[in-house]
């Protein structure tokens, strides 16, 4: 997927004045924030569970090569074929080759954010394979030619009316307005796609090393159809998704749906192990697993490694006051919100997304809800430190920071400078004691007044008081 994070600021302006988007985002609070809070307390040892989950992820990340090889060995022993992909293009090439090998003309796909990293759908269309998204949200986006704006609820930026219009236009059927009717209509279109598909493509929430299984967590049932009906199944996921044992997965699955959608458990948790063998009635004849690096291995062993713990629940974005106001598209790539503001610079370059680490108040709401205890604000700050170290900050900002640091280390001059500064500001504040403009800080005064200072610093007044 093309990265437009460089245009973050301009995209923010557009999104803030998009009335439809703002209306859609207003439901995020009820659906996800209140949803999570209603069920997360079911885990009576929540903090210990989060700590355990983080430890499971760390154990894998500290020895990723070992666990990946272990996974490959177990998966292969059970009849799956494991492919290693360094880049998104490699994934596209491997899937196209598998399609050619098995004479695939049509593919039915369940949700996969990793495939969005690769731009897989476009690549397959070019290779002559017709791809149908079958997750309802992803299907809607495919019809609308749009990218997901949320990693769990990809179409959260659209309201029902837009979807009614879209279905009427694309399905050439009378416009429906009820949610149940719309779902039924989508179902009728999708059902033949499942039955006719030569290939099913899915993501993978976890890779279980001890059994070589791909585990997927879904709600709509399309995941089951896609992974069992077609004769070829291709699962694509990131190399960091390995977990040692099924028991470890249960800890993570206690946290994932509760953090993501406010569900105690999703409708389906599918453990996909091996291809169909002679004793099985169902399942794909060929099971391919593609593991994508795409920059992940460069994060291993660095001060940013904790980011790879991420289990893609989306809680950080649901609780982020920045995401809540601008939605996911403004971030410009596959992953939005706090996790995306870290992953996008790491996976597709800090130079291409200079705003993302900075466009956060570091309020910490994300870190509190992260099920695997990723210190997201600290990682954002570390990216800012990288920007500083690489000279990527603007001259103006660097100068201001230097000047402030110098002043703060010279108390006498600091006292004089602030004394003059606050007098000046106090005068400018006038009768209503408000500054309506501030040189160099129009970012503040475009939307807010600045309450004028009293006119004397605490330091001055305190000294006066003492000498009385």
């Amino acid at each position, binding site marked *: 997927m093309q990265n437009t994070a460089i245009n973050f600021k301009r995209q923010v302006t557009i999104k803030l004045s998009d009335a439809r988007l703002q209306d859609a985002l207003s439901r995020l609070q009820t659906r996800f924030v209140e949803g999570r809070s209603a069920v997360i307390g079911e885990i009576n040892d929540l903090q210990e569970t989060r700590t355990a989950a983080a430890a499971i992820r760390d154990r894998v990340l500290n020895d990723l090569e070992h666990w990946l090889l272990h996974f490959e060995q177990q998966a292969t022993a059970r009849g799956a074929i494991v492919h290693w992909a360094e880049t998104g293009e490699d994934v596209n090439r491997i899937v196209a080759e598998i399609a050619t090998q098995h004479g695939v003309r049509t593919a039915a796909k369940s949700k996969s954010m990793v495939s969005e990293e690769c731009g897989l759908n476009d690549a397959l269309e070019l290779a002559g394979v017709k791809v149908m998204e079958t997750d309802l949200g992803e299907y809607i986006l495919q019809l609308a030619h749009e990218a997901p704006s949320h990693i769990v609820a990809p179409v959260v930026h659209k309201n029902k009316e837009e979807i009614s219009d879209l279905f009427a236009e694309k399905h050439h059927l009378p416009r429906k307005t009820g949610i149940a009717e719309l779902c039924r209509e989508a179902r009728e279109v999708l059902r033949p796609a499942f039955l006719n598909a030569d290939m099913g493509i899915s993501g993978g929430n976890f890779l279980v090393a001890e059994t070589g299984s791909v585990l997927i967590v879904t709600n709509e049932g399309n995941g089951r159809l896609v992974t069992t009906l077609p004769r070829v199944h291709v699962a694509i996921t990131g190399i960091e998704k390995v977990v040692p044992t099924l028991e470890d997965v249960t800890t993570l699955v206690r946290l994932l749906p509760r953090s993501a959608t406010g569900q105690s458990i999703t409708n389906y948790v599918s453990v996909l192990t091996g291809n169909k063998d002679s004793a099985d009635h169902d399942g794909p004849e060929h099971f391919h697993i593609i593991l994508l690096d795409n920059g992940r291995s460069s994060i291993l062993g660095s001060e940013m490694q904790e980011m790879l713990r991420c289990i893609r629940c989306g809680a950080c974005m649901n609780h982020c006051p920045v995401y809540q106001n601008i939605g996911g598209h403004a971030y410009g790539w596959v992953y939005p919100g706090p996790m995306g503001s870290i992953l996008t610079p790491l996976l597709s370059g800090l130079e291409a997304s200079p705003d993302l680490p900075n466009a956060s108040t570091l309020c910490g709401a994300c870190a509190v809800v992260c099920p695997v205890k990723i210190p997201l604000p600290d990682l954002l700050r570390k990216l800012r430190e990288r920007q500083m170290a690489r000279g990527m900050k603007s001259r103006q900002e660097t100068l201001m920071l230097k000047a402030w640091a110098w002043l703060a280390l010279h108390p006498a001059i600091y006292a004089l400078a602030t004394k003059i500064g606050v007098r000046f500001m106090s005068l400018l504040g006038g009768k209503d004691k408000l500054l309506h403009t501030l040189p160099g800080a129009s970012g503040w005064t475009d939307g807010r007044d600045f309450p004028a200072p009293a006119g004397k610093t605490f330091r001055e*007044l305190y000294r006066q008081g003492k000498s009385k």
Partner: protein
Amino acid sequence: MRVGLFVTCLIDAMRPRIGFAAIKLLESAGCEVVVPEQQTCCGQPGYNSGDRKSAVTMALKYLAEFETFDYVVLPSGSCAGMIRVHYPDLFRDDPSMLARITALGQRTYELTDFLVKIAKLEKAPGKFMGSLTYHDSCSGLRELDVYKQPRALLATMPGVTLNEMVESTTCCGFGGTFSVKYGELSTRMADNKCRHITGTHASTIVGGDLGCLLNIEGRLRRNGDHITRVLHVAEVLSGLDAGQDSEAN
């Protein structure tokens, strides 16, 4: 006990009355308050902008000025959080300095946290009459667990009615330099906060961090609200919430 007051750079320059309010509160809780004159800034602006080096020098300056006190108190959750939570990270590779900075950090408190937990102030001297609503600033809340403390102190004032706003713990959009760098976004977040404040019909919005209060007040005034009062919790608790700042002397 001997308490060092770190006034913070923002209060020193923008609303000195809060510093005097903090002194009054600490003294009414029986503390001996000292204000080291060389103090300036805790280093948070640089630290959060990626300038770790300057933050280290500020931390050393803080250590030199405040290490001899029994406790250090700041009328700001974000500056206290900087010292308690983030200073140790600055010295993670220097064990001897880390031990000193951590020890001092453990004796460093946000004002309301200190008044409740350590000084055990039983009754706030303020005489505020009316309704107010409380905004929980992010760092104090999430780094220092300051939530109940200001409410407990306000509850000792018989004239105070607390009308809680919805989402009192959601960021107001200040975020230091964020408020200038991403002004439009910051303003929208402030707008949401103002809407929730107005929804309580309280006469006054109170908080524990001046940065957030300036942001909230700035947006309220720009929106034409010149009535809702915006006060630091120390001003309300101490009674130094009315009139001119010069009266603080």
